[in-house]
């Protein structure tokens, strides 16, 4: 595949003795929106967290196989540097409660001790908030605490915080599952817009969401990658029996 940004080959992940991700091989193309879906406990979130090595926060996590960002093996890059290249947005909006909206956006720089001039910071904040479609709503209240925003706004603030670091890839772990339908659709529109500049991988529990926004869909079942194809292809004529059952609602 051309334009591959992430390339997995026989990738496995364990927590202790629990084999969570089983021999996954897939290529994720650049500037695409890839959805990872599957029933709960199928290893989709763990797979996502393996891409920026967040799963290593659990002490008994280990992996095997190859996972490459461009040509570089992810597990040879220092996690601190890797995570600056691969941003992440979580299930529950988690702006830092002790910081203002402005400070939340530049939190990545502040946390990493990167010094910026006031003008640079202002630029980054405005640019990131515009890209996250939040600028118009918060430009007059940048000094207010981020936790005063609504859930959907907080989640867009978290997206702004992630893209402020100018990452290559943006990982989203069920970003709308804690939000109402209106906020959900605004985030979905935002994601479709964002894939021009970023490669987006989104884990979702919601098939309709995957069908609505993604270019490609990966279907995980019991830790295995059951099927990976163009989204349309997969939803119209799934090749795998398990995918078929899932899409037709025989289990969830």
């Amino acid at each position, binding site marked *: 595949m051309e334009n591959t940004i992430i390339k997995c080959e026989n990738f496995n992940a364990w927590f202790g003795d629990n084999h969570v991700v089983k021999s996954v091989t897939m290529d994720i193309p650049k500037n695409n929106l890839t959805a990872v879906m599957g029933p709960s406990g199928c290893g989709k979130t763990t797979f996502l967290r393996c891409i*920026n090595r967040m799963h290593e926060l659990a002490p008994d996590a280990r992996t095997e196989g190859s996972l490459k960002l461009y040509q570089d093996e992810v597990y040879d890059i220092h996690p*601190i540097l890797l995570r600056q290249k691969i941003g992440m947005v*979580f299930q529950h909006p988690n702006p*830092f*409660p002790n910081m203002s909206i402005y400070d939340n956006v530049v*939190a990545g720089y502040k*946390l*990493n001790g990167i010094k910026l001039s006031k003008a640079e910071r202002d630029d980054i904040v405005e640019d990131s908030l515009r890209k996250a479609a939040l600028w118009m709503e918060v430009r007059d209240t940048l000094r207010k605490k981020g936790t005063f925003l609504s859930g959907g706004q907080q989640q867009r603030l978290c997206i702004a*915080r992630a893209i402020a*670091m100018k990452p290559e890839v943006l990982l989203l772990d069920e970003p709308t599952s804690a939000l109402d339908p209106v906020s959900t659709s605004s985030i979905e529109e935002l994601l479709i817009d964002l894939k021009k500049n970023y490669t987006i991988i989104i884990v979702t529990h919601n098939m309709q969401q995957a069908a609505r926004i993604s270019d490609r869909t990966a279907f995980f079942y019991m830790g295995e990658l059951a099927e990976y194809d163009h989204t349309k292809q997969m939803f119209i004529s799934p090749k795998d029996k398990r995918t078929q059952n899932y899409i037709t609602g025989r289990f969830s």
Partner: protein
Amino acid sequence: MQISTQKIIQQPEKRYKEKEFSAKIPFTIKRERYFRKSLVLAAIGVIILVMAFGCTLVVYSIPSFKALGIHFLYGKTWDPVNNVFGAYPFLLGTLITSFLALIISIPFSISIALFLGEYYPEGWFSNLLKNAIELIAAIPSVIYGFWGLFVLVPIVRHLEMKFGVLPYGVGILTASLILSVMIIPYAASMGREIVKMTPLRLKEAAYSLGSTRYEVIRHVVIPYAKSGLLAGILLSLGRALGETMAVTMVIGNSSLIPKNIFAPGNTMASVIANEFTEAAGSVYLSALIELGLVLFLVTAIINIAGKSIIKRFSKI
């Protein structure tokens, strides 16, 4: 009546159950009543006890207050032979030793809180450290006093000779060092609990932006836990203010205003412990009790302040 008999006839099994249940009622209700009464009694008893402590202190310090008035608090001389009682040297001694102890202990207690709460919350080493810290709080203070006399005093004396001050060995610094060890557990275990409470999603947010562990602690954990850490420090200050035995043994028991931190001095608690048995005159005795009252008030205020910070914190 009729209806109930009908019911009983219709459902013979249920009749048996009801009978058993009704036989139980008087006992369970009685037990409930006694249980509640005994709890209320215990609660009221504690309140009365605390109020009685306060009243005793106030009543017995009236003679001293009548004789000395407010001068008691800032009088610089404590001379029982001439019936002159000024508590200022002891007030000063208490505050200096406590705050010095606090300053010495803070780096240790906060490091321990972060280590146990964030870095190594589990595992055998963490358990060992946790138990060791708890043991520090459980050691009787007279043992600290002994340790101070036999180990710390010679070291401080050596230090004093190097600095060229009078080598007493005993004094404000020695007392502060002992106190700093004794109060570590309070701030450390309180801090550990609060640090542990930092939400994982905030830490994950910081990690996902490429933070190191140090940066996560510095920018996420400490801002989140700071009021809890402060409350722990206040509680340990309360403990330092009131500590008696170990301090009495190593502070040097001088009623003069200490000229520097090496000089011997006295705290309010150590004066009371030292001089209570030899207090001859009624004003002397009453002055010691008034000292106790002041100490009681200061520690009460510190404790209330600490608790109110915890309360405000746990609401968030």
